[in-house]
């Protein structure tokens, strides 16, 4: 086949919703975009462990402790599945981690905000995992096979994350006045950062069009963000908490809630590394990795020795 016919048959598969598999032909740009998107996603999962891992040792009951630990552990698993999916595209996990540790690769900005009270565990599970699920469910049908399969596994595990978060919020909202206040405070702080998880406005999002064409992305940032606002507003009411944005109003004409313009200046600054916890999160990851170097080396050396012993 010629280059042209390769590309034509690739696009035909995409259009017919046939999955692309690792050994299939794919345009360079498709491969690069996928590596960037999947690794960024994987990094978000493992950096995302940190703000919640913070609270495992302080969880207010043994049940909450076990649930939170299992939840944060799941996120590590998600990182692992996603790194594996990216590895089928010809990059190693070590290379991806190197990009993360040197600041070349990005991860979701939400994890650069601090977790200050226990209610943040509720708000994160409910809003952050909720937003993540909304982003991720369509990716179960994304065009690249290993990515789609990883996402199926991730989404299956995510369902309990949002529930445990909402349950924390529910307990706090129905609790004492100070607990309710704690819940409200967390909602107010996490609302805007959660909305920013859907990425910049479509009008200024450079990658959206091509990604939609390739089915690496299935809905635009604006569509998903709006969908999230619409379902979450009703959940806030169910909790009996005040809306975190005074401009949230039902728009009959659009059939959606209107809300305030987000502070995109802040968004881009956090992306650039100026968020409240950027440096700390990265430093924690780098330290864990560097502290582990001698451990990984020892295991390799041991495996090598055993191999030669067996052969001898």
């Amino acid at each position, binding site marked *: 086949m010629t280059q042209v016919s390769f590309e034509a048959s690739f696009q035909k598969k995409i259009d017919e919703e046939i999955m692309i598999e690792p050994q299939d032909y794919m345009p360079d740009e498709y491969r690069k975009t996928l590596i960037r998107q999947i690794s960024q996603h994987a990094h978000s999962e493992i950096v995302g462990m940190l703000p919640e891992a913070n609270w495992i040792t302080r969880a207010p009951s043994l049940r909450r402790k076990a649930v939170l630990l299992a939840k944060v552990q799941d996120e*590590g698993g998600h990182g692992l599945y996603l790194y594996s999916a990216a590895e089928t595209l010809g990059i190693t996990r070590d290379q991806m981690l190197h990009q993360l540790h040197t600041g070349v690769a990005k991860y979701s900005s939400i994890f650069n905000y601090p977790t200050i009270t226990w209610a943040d565990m509720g708000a994160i599970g409910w809003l952050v995992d909720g937003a993540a699920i909304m982003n991720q469910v369509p990716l179960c049908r994304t065009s690249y096979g290993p990515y789609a399969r990883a996402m199926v596994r991730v989404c299956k595990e995510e369902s309990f994350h949002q529930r445990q978060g909402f349950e924390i919020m529910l307990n706090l909202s129905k609790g004492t006045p100070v607990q309710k206040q704690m819940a409200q405070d967390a909602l107010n702080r996490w609302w805007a950062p959660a909305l920013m998880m859907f990425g910049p406005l479509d009008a200024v999002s450079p990658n959206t069009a091509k990604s939609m064409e390739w089915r690496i992305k299935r809905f635009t940032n604006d569509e998903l963000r709006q969908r999230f606002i619409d379902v979450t507003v009703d959940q806030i009411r169910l909790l009996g908490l005040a809306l975190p944005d005074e401009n949230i109003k039902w728009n009959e004409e659009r059939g959606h809630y209107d809300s305030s313009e987000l502070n995109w200046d802040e968004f881009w600054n956090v992306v650039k590394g100026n968020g409240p916890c950027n440096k700390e999160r990265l430093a924690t990851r780098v330290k864990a990795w560097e502290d582990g170097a001698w451990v990984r*080396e020892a295991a390799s050396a041991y495996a090598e020795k055993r191999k030669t012993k067996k052969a001898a």
Partner: protein
Amino acid sequence: MSSVTTLKYTLQLADNVLIMGQRLAALCGKGPILEQDIALTNISLDQIGQARSLYQYAATIVNNMSVADKAQLFNAPLLQEKINNKLSITEDDLAYLRDAWDYRNCLLVEQENGDWAYTVARSFFFDRFQYLLYTAMLKSTDSTLAAIAEKSLKEVQYHIKWASEWVIRLGDGTDISKEKMQQALQARWEYTGEMFTMNELEKEAYNIGIGVDVSQLQQTYQQQIETIVQEAGLQMPTAAWMQTGGKNGVHTEHLGYILAEMQYLQRAYPNMEW
């Protein structure tokens, strides 16, 4: 009175696995590689699960006691208050409201995580003990304790495999890992003797048939540890003096910090549901 003995014995068992699980939980997200991060968290989850079963059982025992008997049990004011107000006690009250001098875990489990070798050494020493303890506890005349032992044993079998393999891997890995593993074994060994020294409570528990004579486990323990240490190409650690105290409520300074962190919400916002 035998129910008090059962209660205190159960609490001692629970404190051990809770503090161990709490220590390992602090490593979540900081492992040397994702796969081992997840492995370590699984162990921690098992231990917290065991602690919950034991505290739940302990809470049932307390709640079934007469008001007069209950009033004698605890120093902790918040617990005392609940009992005085005739409220029933929960697993969380026992874990979150008792202070360091009430805790009866052995000193080993409260020791710091340190580097990977130290973490492995502590688990290696503790999990082996747990395995022998739970195996002997299958014969406990207390059917709940025997059942918890049976369920936990399956988990611990995997824990000892994990820890032993890491001792061997590090011992027979690189020069650096060998040195670190040897150092960690040496540093933690002095906390192992306490596990096999019967305190008054354990003697009583053994006499009434619910508890285990831990002093009888020591020889097997020593042999099993030695086998692995040898396979790892390491020297058996030595101790001029074995540290004791945790089982009688006299702890190292670490426990106070562990509890301050673990219990802070329950103490800053008392009597609330979370």
